[in-house]
């Protein structure tokens, strides 16, 4: 009887990297191949964007409130209570907002895409699409990755606005500041170099979330257990990618703007 071949871990890892590069190449090849699925793209924007708004809104609001409540005593001790709107806006728009919203989207969207495509794999729907002569990458992957790349930045901007509004309400719990004065301070403290790099990195967050979700779903195994594994690994991997992209983005932003 032939002995079972044991593939070393590093070879499996290299093989997986190769598969991911191949999947990425397939995505770009199909993106520019023509025959874009507009209706599926719009449906995905609705599913990914609109259906995540409530979760993103609530989380951002709470983050805005909590940050003000946590910052206030320290800022008062430094005699810098008037700096609270500026501190919140810069930290929220530059870093906290995009990363928190990215992580929330990874949890909600990457898992949902991973589970949906994993379940299509298990029930042979991907194979059915393939053997019918249709292109599953064109129909399923391209619209999803583009939708996440567009909707995560939109959600991030929305989350920033709601978080800053939450900060305004929290500030008014103990102090009194008018809506006009608060947002004048917020807007005055933000400039192009705060907003644009944050927006650009959320495009990459969205791309990573969509790509990881699709890849994990497409490469899941046949059993029903693999659907859960696909969803779970999609969340973990996408979350990790968000921190990696964030670290790279900070370096690039520092070089370009500061």
């Amino acid at each position: 009887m032939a002995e079972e071949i044991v593939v070393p871990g590093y070879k499996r890892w290299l093989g997986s990297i190769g598969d991911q590069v191949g999947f990425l190449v397939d995505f770009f090849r199909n993106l520019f191949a023509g025959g874009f699925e507009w209706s599926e793209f719009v449906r995905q924007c609705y599913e990914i964007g609109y259906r995540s708004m409530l979760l993103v809104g609530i989380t951002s609001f709470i983050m805005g409130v909590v940050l003000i409540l946590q910052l206030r005593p320290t800022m008062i001790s430094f005699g810098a209570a008037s700096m609270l709107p500026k501190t919140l806006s810069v930290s929220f728009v530059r870093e906290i907002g995009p990363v928190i919203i990215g992580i929330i989207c990874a949890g909600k969207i990457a898992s949902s895409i991973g589970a949906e495509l994993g379940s299509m794999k298990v029930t042979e729907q991907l194979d059915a699409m393939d053997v019918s002569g249709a292109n599953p990458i064109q129909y399923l992957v391209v619209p999803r990755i583009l939708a996440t790349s567009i909707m995560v930045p939109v959600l991030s901007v929305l989350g920033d606005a709601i978080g800053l509004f939450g900060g305004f309400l929290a500030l008014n719990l103990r102090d009194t500041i008018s809506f006009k004065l608060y947002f004048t301070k917020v807007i005055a403290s933000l400039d192009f170099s705060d907003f644009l790099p944050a927006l650009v990195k959320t495009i990459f967050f969205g791309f990573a979330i969509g790509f990881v979700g699709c890849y994990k779903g497409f490469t899941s195994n046949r059993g029903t257990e693999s659907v859960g594994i696909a969803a779970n690994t999609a969340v973990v991997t996408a979350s990790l990618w968000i921190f990696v992209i964030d670290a790279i983005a900070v370096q690039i932003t520092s070089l370009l703007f500061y």
Partner: protein
Amino acid sequence: MTEQETIKKKQAPKSQKEVVILIRDLKKAFGDKEVLKDISLELDKGENLVVLGRSGSGKSVLIQCIVGLLKPDGGSVKVFGEDVAGMSDKQLKDLRIRIGFLFQSGALYDSMTVRENMEFPLTRVLKLKDQGEIDKRVAAVLESVGLSDAIDKMPSDLSGGMRKRAGLARTLVVDPEIMLYDEPTTGLDPITSREISELIISIQKKNKTSSIIITHDMECARIASDRVLILTDGEFTKEGTFDELLKSKDKNVASYFNII
């Protein structure tokens, strides 16, 4: 001469008939498990060939190699005279349009209604634009499988038999020349199984399709087959018409037929 060698000799190309699928010495293994061992087979135009075998005997792997879903480890698979292994993506796509594949589960796209499932290959594969023609073809194919009333239902609202018939309709909507059925009656009650088997015959007659039917359902084999091949542990061990095999004294063959 062994039984397998006799079958291989019988499978030598027949000049008088048009062969649509020709498989020679096909090998496929997963890890150290050899699933298909030098399989040879040919399917004539208009023929319904049933491949009988126990679970895990390699039946589904065989038809997945025919459509290029799995790559064989050795041997050749020719469909309409073209070697599947040597095809480009474009050629493989063109070939797949000519082959209908009914999956065991029906494999309906569960985010789409039955109508959208039928429209999908017409708009994405055949690239039809005329909505009138699309509607006409969808209505006709659903009528042929008796599912006209289910046109706007979601797959989750369909019974097992209806899902199979809807899956069948989706493959038929593009008028394939070859049909590959993977366990078409598995999981269905005897009456629905019989209806599906009779549907396979009516498709063969009406659409002039050539078919390979993978099954372990003897009633389906009896109704739908022109010829039967028995696959045991990755090798064809017997070939003949259903009635010939029914009379066989071979223990392996008899073990299938004793249950009916």
